[in-house]
């Protein structure tokens, strides 16, 4: 992940992810913590996962599919997936 041609660390990507998830899903940013449930915190239903894929594409330029979310329970799991996709 690059911002202004500077490679971002996983920590920086996580902070940015918290920003856009908080804004899009209208939840308190402080609730987006590694140990918290992705689904419950963001109140995701099956349709919302489609929008999550869109958000990740728009903000992090990563192509995810529904399959990628199998086994993802917490934000921590999700950040690991993102880090893996970004090779961070």
């Amino acid at each position, binding site marked *: 992940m690059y911002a202004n041609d500077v490679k971002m660390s996983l920590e920086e990507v996580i902070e940015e992810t918290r920003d856009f998830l908080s804004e*899009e*899903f*209208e939840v308190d940013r402080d609730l987006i913590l590694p140990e918290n449930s992705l689904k419950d915190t963001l*109140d995701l*239903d099956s*349709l*919302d996962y*489609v*929008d999550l*894929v*869109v958000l990740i*594409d728009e903000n992090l330029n990563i*192509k995810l*599919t529904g399959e990628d979310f199998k086994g993802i329970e917490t934000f921590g799991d999700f950040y690991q997936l993102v880090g893996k996709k970004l090779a961070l």
Partner: protein
Amino acid sequence: MSHRVVITGIGIYSCLGENLDEVTKSLYAGKSGIVFDQVRKDFGFRSALTGMVQEPDLKNYLSRRQRVGMHQPAVYAYMATHEALALSGLDVDFLEQTETGIIYGNDSTAASVVEAVDKVREKHDTTLIGSGAIFQNMNSTVNMNLSTIFKLKGINFTLSAACASGSHSIGMGYLMISQGLQERVICGGAQEINASAMASFDGLGTFSVRESEPTKASRPFDRDRDGLIPSGGAATVILESYEAAVKRGAPILAELIGYGFSSNGDHISNPSIDGQTRSLQMALKQAGITTAEVDYINAHATSTPVGDGSEARAIYEVFGGNVPVSSTKSMTGHECWMAGASEIVYSLLMMQNSFIAPNINFENPDEDSAKINIIPETKEQTINCFLSNSFGFGGTNSTLIVRKI
């Protein structure tokens, strides 16, 4: 068994105002909602004139999940319906526990379709359209969204009948209730306002090109009219059986006593005096009233040379030349799929406030309009009974008659 059908709530979101109070003032003042839209000129429109509304921010009303499937038709319809339900004393808890239906008029979702398709062309991945597009793009978008938001349990479908959609939606609600199939139906019409929705209509050369004078461009029945002006927003009319309204102590605004309809079975865009006359006569017959009992006619007249002349002749043929007539499209422009519902709302506001809104810009009659009684300036007058016409492409005609109770 036939049930009396009453109106217990109305709501409006239009270029004349964002609520009933604002719209009443605009109607009384004869204020035009028409503007010049540079976006349309740049897009390649022959005429950049349009009615315009502010895009409401629904964040204060609805959750993200409720909003993502909504584009202009559903957004505008939500605003109008929110107001109508409040006036009618209906809330979600009551609606969830009773059987209330929705039959809403809508006939396009052009902008949302274009936006979604453009996204796929850019990304080459349909997932990246997002989850809301399908619910924005289907023509039943208003019904899908409002029935979900307001937890409606009754009849639920969209009515598409071109520029008579809103009027027929009220007619269908009327039939449902009068036949005893529903106690309460939310009716109305929605019309998106954007270049994508109106480009093909503009291409027919039907719109006024009086761009130097936007507020004078819509001039139904006037000798020097040169075309209609598109517009939009949404209007909601809540219908209820008289018994159900009384039972819950709802405000009864008026009674819907007649619904006439017909099809021209002729040209796809040209009007028909015969078709319009049959619709008028059917509504009068069903209402069981004479022409002398109608105090006001809200005309369909859109400011096109051919259409207004036909309607003037049809009105003259059925009513003669005395009944007061005005076209509120002189102020709003043509609200298309919404018009049949909004014009019931406008006429009800006139009835409640005892005035006839003017047919602004009516300066010189032509041969047809000279025969009927067009009201060019606001007139103080009691309205006990009014009639509203709506005609659409494909030769679909609808006439509604409303009376004080």
